[in-house]
């Protein structure tokens, strides 16, 4: 498994009329704060779903929130979207408190929620066009349908779409209002690899057009590919945060060399795996010149993530 972030092929911006200046080449951290969360708390009955969560999103960046099921990701996102009340903490989204914000604020948000099954009798085009009309400055609905790859399905009833097509429609509905801030809650669940890759390109184009994106996902490759920063949430708190390359600290990224000698499995972390391999070849190789079960692993984001959760379990 490769662990490095594939550089994106710098596609053209999704919207040439992007409101916030020219498309940038990378994440911009300078132009202000889209989301600021401090000490967020939410309790359901006896379960503390969110427990002192802090999170920041700079304008124009993609932040992926990772964490096991039940960690409080969706609850947090829904509080930021204004769907849920919070029990405590300070939340600013696009400069306003979601619990009190009004229509003008909603016009600046895009929301792609989990599992939707509404509007079954409308066609794709009707659904996107009508949603565009709720907004003061929408994108061209037909261009949006095209951008999510549903142009061939524009005249089809929503009920007839496959799971992946349905999800792409959700994304179209989330971005047609030309949002400054887009929430994507597990957007690629059920996608085939090709659809997922196409979707990633779309997300990066949106980011390059200036959209700030908060993404939750269980797909670590997705987070590694898309996110400027990742935050790992566990039991309602952020337990680790950083760029996909730096998460977990340098130790978590140290290559791991494993091999078998005299029937015993060995493992060693080293910054010089090649030297170690050469040393093993000289000292531990068998008659055929091979070191048994030799394996050099550079930890992927997934390895780091699982390592972080395991560490928390033992803490």
């Amino acid at each position, binding site marked *: 498994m490769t662990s490095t972030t594939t550089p994106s092929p710098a596609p053209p911006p999704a919207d040439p009329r992007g409101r916030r200046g020219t498309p940038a080449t990378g994440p911009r951290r300078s132009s202000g704060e889209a989301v600021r969360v401090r000490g967020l708390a939410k309790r359901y009955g006896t379960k503390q779903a969110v427990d002192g969560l802090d999170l920041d999103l700079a304008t124009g960046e993609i932040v992926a929130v990772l964490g096991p099921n039940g960690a409080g990701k969706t609850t947090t996102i829904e509080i930021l979207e204004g769907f849920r009340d919070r029990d405590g903490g300070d939340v600013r989204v696009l400069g306003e408190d979601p619990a009190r914000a009004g*229509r003008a604020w909603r016009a600046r948000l*895009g929301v792609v929620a989990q599992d939707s099954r509404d509007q079954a009798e409308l066609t794709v085009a009707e659904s996107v066009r009508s949603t565009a009309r709720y907004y003061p400055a929408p994108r061209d609905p037909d261009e949006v349908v095209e951008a999510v790859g549903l142009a061939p399905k524009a005249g089809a009833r929503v009920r007839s779409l496959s799971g992946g097509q349905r999800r792409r429609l959700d994304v179209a509905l989330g971005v047609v209002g030309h949002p400054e801030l887009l929430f994507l809650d597990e957007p690629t669940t059920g996608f085939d690899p090709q659809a997922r890759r196409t979707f990633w390109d779309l997300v990066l184009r949106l980011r390059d057009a200036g959209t700030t994106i908060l993404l939750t996902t269980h797909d670590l490759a997705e987070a590694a590919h898309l996110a400027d920063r990742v935050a790992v949430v566990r039991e309602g708190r952020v337990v680790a945060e950083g760029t996909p390359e730096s998460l977990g600290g340098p130790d978590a990224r140290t290559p791991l060399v494993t091999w078998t000698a005299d029937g015993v499995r060995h493992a060693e972390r080293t910054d010089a795996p090649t030297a170690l391999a050469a040393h093993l070849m000289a000292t531990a190789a068998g008659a055929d010149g091979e070191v048994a079960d030799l394996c050099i692993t550079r930890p992927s984001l997934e390895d780091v993530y699982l390592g972080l959760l395991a560490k928390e379990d033992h803490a």
Partner: protein
Amino acid sequence: MSAAVDTRVSPGRAGRLPGLAPLALVRAGLELRQFWRERDAVIFVFAYPIVMLAIFSSVFGSEDQGTDVAQIGFAQYFLPGMVATGIVLTSFQSLAVSIAVERDDGTLRRLRATPLPAAAYVGGKVLLTLATSVVQTALLLAVAALAFDVPLPTDAGRWATFAWVFVLGSATGTICGVGFSSLPRSGRSASAVVTPVVLVLQFVSGVFFAFFALPGWMQTLASVFPLKWIAQGMRSVFLPDEMAALETSGSWQHPATAAVLVAWLIVGLVVAVRTFRWRRRDDG
């Protein structure tokens, strides 16, 4: 609504939020399309009052209703009740069920994420109700007149009464439907919760049986709810004036009808505004 929209925008956040009336029209267009595409519901809504009228007229067709004062055919006597029950079905029952279902399937949640105001959503429902009620009632009256030889009123005064009872009854039913939609816990249970309410009201309100023949306590109970008054108002439209003697009060009671319907309209409005939820009850 399709191609005519110019969605091109200039840079900057200069765009103004769309107004309530245009949004309600957008919603109404969507509601009508979706309603029309659910063929089974369309058939039910339009055929139910007609089928009920046909059944009751056939079963009791040999009996005439009334007293020595006035004798009229059964179809004519029950037409007002069917008009009233149609109004309650398309307004109260359809709305209470459809909003509960849309709360359950995520329609409302998705709309909540947009700048669409709740009033525009409800406005779309009101316009749908109006459109379906008008078509439904027109079909019912046409079938009654052509197939069952029910004489329809010819003077303007009766049609004026028809108009205000129809509009006020539909408005009250619609608003009460919005308010009631918060009661079912899920979309699946919505029909099971709403239908019995309407069914019981139909029985006690003189829709299926002559109101004057019902036990006194039942008449009193029915007098609390709108359906009895809508039916009575419609009787004043479609029955000869002598039949007013058969009403419990001996008159058509137009002022009382208006008062009860307006009272329910206000109560329904307060309940609807206070209980309207974008999401399911068990959803946090």
